[in-house]
């Protein structure tokens, strides 16, 4: 924006540059007060949802629509000998059947691991694995038809323990049909610096074994897909997906249709959290059934099916050795991890990297080694859940730090301060950290929680704990290698003073549609209600990679900002021309174009846009974004975990532990999250609160597992048994926004959607230790686990091996 040449380039025709801007007006333009950023907004699409008007995928109906259901394996591991669907097909109201034979081409969200088929071809690999599907007039008929399908299975030995599965060498015990390495799904070993030397010279080495049980997403909307082939032969698939573009590509591949004959539309969606971020069987099934029957076909998962589709958080068994100096300086981390991947890869290749790569901030240390192995098992596949692959090791890491603080007699917050990575610094695994507000996060939670007083005064049974974390604002590289922009947005202004924004970005409830509107509003000076966002339709919108790894605000926001600024310059130039002033003196806000130096001179936006359209032609601009490529090392795997910007979080949790019942009550959680710049205040707070609530649920009560004693069925595939916190369970959450603007983010913005989950869990674990002196190294922190740990501690105290915890308490040890 500084040079005249750049400005001429920007408007394309020199209009409005007749009068050169001076330095003062340039600066005023750059420094102009924001009229939208950081405020609280009414989301652009909330009111219709609240009025019950919005159509989510299952609310869509097309004439002649059929309903589909999938037949799922009751066995955890079996060969399919035969499928006889003749009786099913003969039933009135049944239109078509498909099996794995219709889906021979395998796929996978990660191009290097296409190891699943839409319906199982030769074998089923977990209870719930789909192998046939029916399209019928209604669901009842489809379900009845499923029961009429006769399947002959050759039951095989199932493996539910990842370490047992890893020992298998023969073909029969190899779970995934495409695996070439037994039940090893992925192995990563990376080493930086000399970890053995650092641990050797350390004054203190903390060793710990941790187990993070699996959890699942639990979005209230089950997966749903609807497919229809129109008269021109175009297949349209409506799906509750986070990743329209990747789904589009896999549909083309598996169905053997050219991509331009497929249209993917993501209707408003009821929550996802990573559980809808890859293709699922139902999408291929409804497409194929629609192609076969010539009628629209819809499939809605039952809640039970959602549990079996899973793709949730990997159980991880972690062994950490962490070295410290006596002043609490972090010297290095040596981590070994076994990931329980379930039957298919999903994002597992990436997860395995993330289990180590994302631990190298917010603390700086000179040496690091992580050795992670992902195993196939006969269970629903694990994939990405909010905080993908780094929540589990963060749990281990933050407890290790807490143990060190206790051993060294240091305040745990101070210990973290001493090791905090600085803005612009490189991590030990060669990622460049942009901005960092981590110290401010620590300071805010310390102050708001009354940390210092509470550490000193809380009696036995009450405790306070801290943890810190970091997360990526999008992955530096797309899932399939290419050099094209990772985000692009198209914006049009019309003669009524309104804007339309076209973006491929998937709004999954996190408010990305509103984020785009806020940026256009900020730059073009029109209110949100004058901006219409059309998103996630592959026919109308530019390609966007989707809602995963917290990329949308940074990447799509940047693309939107570029397009909006191009339009702004054109509009301002046209107004300036008519007023005879430099372009930079014109500002846009409040539905007006205003002379910054004489605000009494103004016109409304409609007039300004009409002038601009008269001068420049149609006011349509695009903006694109691609990531900088100099943020990571050159070693193999060095790109995984690289990001244009990192967010930072600190959590303090206050708990009360009833030593008689083992019940843990989390009283309050204070969260400070550095999101760079909050573009829309309440939306960012909502992400902080929602992430923290989700971590809290994992810490206290959520458990996704199968029962080996019952042939590998899920222990409780319902919201009754899979316990997610209700209004009554959830503690007070005090969310604080910290802003350390990052040069790579739009207006400095970084992510807020996943980062704030990570440190909630270890903060609670550390608070429990402060309360009653027990270290919980596995999740969830159920009353049984707490009581068992308390009993162990009491025995040690009785044997004189441990001093009583918080004995200076004036009240009795058993007080609640």
């Amino acid at each position, binding site marked *: 924006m500084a040079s005249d040449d750049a400005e001429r380039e920007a408007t394309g025709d020199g209009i409005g540059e007749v009068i050169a801007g001076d330095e003062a007006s340039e600066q005023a333009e750059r420094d102009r007060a924001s009229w939208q950023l950081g405020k*609280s*907004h*009414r*989301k652009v*699409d*909330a*009111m219709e*949802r*609240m*009025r*019950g*008007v*919005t*159509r*989510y995928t*299952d*609310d869509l*109906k097309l004439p002649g629509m059929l309903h589909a259901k999938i037949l799922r394996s009751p066995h955890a591991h079996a060969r399919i000998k035969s499928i006889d669907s003749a009786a099913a097909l003969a039933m*009135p*109201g049944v239109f078509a059947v498909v099996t794995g034979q219709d889906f021979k081409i395998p796929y996978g969200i990660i191009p290097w691991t296409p190891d699943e088929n839409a319906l199982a071809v030769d074998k089923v690999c977990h209870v719930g694995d789909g192998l046939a599907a029916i399209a019928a007039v*209604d669901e*009842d*008929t489809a379900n009845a038809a499923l029961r009429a399908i006769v399947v002959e299975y050759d039951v095989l030995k199932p493996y539910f323990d990842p370490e047992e599965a890893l020992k298998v060498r023969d073909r029969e015990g190899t779970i995934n049909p495409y695996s070439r390495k037994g039940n090893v799904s992925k192995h990563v070993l990376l080493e930086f610096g000399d970890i053995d030397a650092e641990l050797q010279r350390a004054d203190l080495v903390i060793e710990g074994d941790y187990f993070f049980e699996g959890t699942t*997403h639990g*979005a*209230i*909307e*089950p997966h749903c897909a609807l497919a229809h082939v129109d008269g021109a032969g175009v297949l349209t698939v409506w799906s509750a997906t986070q990743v329209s573009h990747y789904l589009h590509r896999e549909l083309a591949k598996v169905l053997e249709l050219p991509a331009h004959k497929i249209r993917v539309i993501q209707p*408003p*969606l*009821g*929550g996802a*959290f990573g559980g809808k971020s890859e293709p699922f069987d139902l999408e291929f099934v409804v497409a194929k059934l629609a192609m076969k029957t010539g009628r629209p076909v819809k499939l*809605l998962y*039952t*809640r039970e099916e959602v549990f079996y589709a899973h793709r949730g958080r990997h159980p991880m068994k972690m062994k950490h050795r962490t070295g410290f100096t006596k002043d609490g300086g972090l010297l290095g981390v040596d981590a070994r991890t076994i990931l329980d991947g379930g039957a298919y890869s999903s994002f597992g290749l990436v997860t395995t990297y993330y289990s180590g790569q994302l631990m190298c901030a917010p603390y700086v240390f000179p040496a690091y080694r992580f050795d992670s192995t992902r195993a196939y098992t006969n269970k629903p596949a694990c994939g990405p859940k909010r905080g993908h692959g780094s929540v589990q090791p963060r749990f281990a890491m933050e407890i290790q730090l807490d143990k060190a603080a206790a051993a060294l007699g240091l305040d745990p917050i101070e210990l973290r301060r001493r090791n905090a990575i600085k803005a612009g610094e490189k991590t030990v695994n060669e990622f460049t950290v942009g901005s960092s507000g981590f110290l401010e996060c620590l300071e805010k939670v310390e102050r708001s929680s009354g940390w210092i007083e509470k550490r000193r005064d809380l009696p036995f049974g009450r405790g306070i704990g801290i943890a810190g974390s970091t997360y990526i604002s999008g992955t530096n590289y797309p899932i399939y290698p290419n050099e094209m922009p990772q985000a692009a947005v198209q914006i049009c202004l019309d003669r009524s003073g309104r804007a339309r924004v076209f973006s491929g970005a998937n709004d*999954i*409830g*996190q*408010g990305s549609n509103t984020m785009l509107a806020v940026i256009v509003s900020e730059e073009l000076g029109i209110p949100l209600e004058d901006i219409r966002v059309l998103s996630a339709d592959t026919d109308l919108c530019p390609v966007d990679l989707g809602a995963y790894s917290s990329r949308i605000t940074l990447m799509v926001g940047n693309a939107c900002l570029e397009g909006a600024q191009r339009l702004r310059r054109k509009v301002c130039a046209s107004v300036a021309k008519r007023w005879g002033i430099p372009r930079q003196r014109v500002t846009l806000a409040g539905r007006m174009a205003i002379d910054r130096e004489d605000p009494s001179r103004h016109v409304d936006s409609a007039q300004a846009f009409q002038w601009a359209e008269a001068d420049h032609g149609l006011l349509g601009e695009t903006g694109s974004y691609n990531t900088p490529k100099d943020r990571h090392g050159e070693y193999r795997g060095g790109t995984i975990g690289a990001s244009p910007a990192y967010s930072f979080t600190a959590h303090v949790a206050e708990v009360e532990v009833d030593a008689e019942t083992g019940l843990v009550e989390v009283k309050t959680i204070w969260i400070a999250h550095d999101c760079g710049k909050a573009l829309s205040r*309440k*939306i960012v*707070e*909502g992400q902080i*609160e*929602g*992430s*923290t*609530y*989700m971590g809290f649920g994992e810490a206290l009560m959520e458990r996704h597992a199968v029962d080996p004693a019952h042939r590998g069925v899920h222990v409780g595939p*319902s*919201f*009754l048994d899979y316990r*997610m916190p*209700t*209004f*009554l369970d*959830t503690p007070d*959450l005090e*969310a604080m926004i910290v802003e350390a603007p990052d040069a790579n983010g739009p207006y400095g913005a970084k992510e807020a959607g996943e980062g704030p989950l990570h440190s909630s869990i270890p903060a609670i674990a550390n608070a429990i230790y402060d309360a009653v002196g027990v270290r919980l190294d596995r999740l969830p922190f159920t009353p049984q686990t707490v009581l068992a740990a308390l009993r162990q501690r009491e025995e040690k105290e009785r044997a004189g091996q441990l001093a009583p915890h918080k004995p200076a308490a004036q009240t009795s040890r058993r007080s609640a």
Partner: protein
Amino acid sequence: MSPAAIMLSMTVNGEPVQVAAPPHWTLLEVLRYRLDLIGSKQGCDKGDCGACTVQIDGVPQLACLTLAIHAEGRAVTTVEGLGLLAGGVHPLQDAFDRHTAAQCGFCTPGILLSAEALLRKRGREVTRAEVCEALAGNLCRCTGYTKIIDAVVDASRVMAGANSQEAGRGE
């Protein structure tokens, strides 16, 4: 094939309705598949999540666990009818909008109907604890509940204020 349909009569959002449906259908199925009132959502179809919450004669009920025939002759209110109760946008809907209490919005219709019943019953400003108690049967996975509670309390304040204004005018 489904059993032969039966005829049902009920009032839905203030309007008398006659609809034919199989006798084993739930109220949720009738609302969504016969009356195209898709505001009430199917989250689990077994009464665990509350996304299907409607009101029957003003009392919050789980439509997925209510046979449609049990609504015969009764007054059903769904989220589509909420605005009718307030002549446009209900104060609860407005408060949710101002507080960003709806993220994905899937649980919101059920929550709004549970909350409306609470506010109507209390007829005054409510406490956070009362809100949590009344909404304990509605799961939300996005918000962590904080802003929903903010919004319901705020709406109760707005409605109590409006009530006292009306009472004043009546004198």
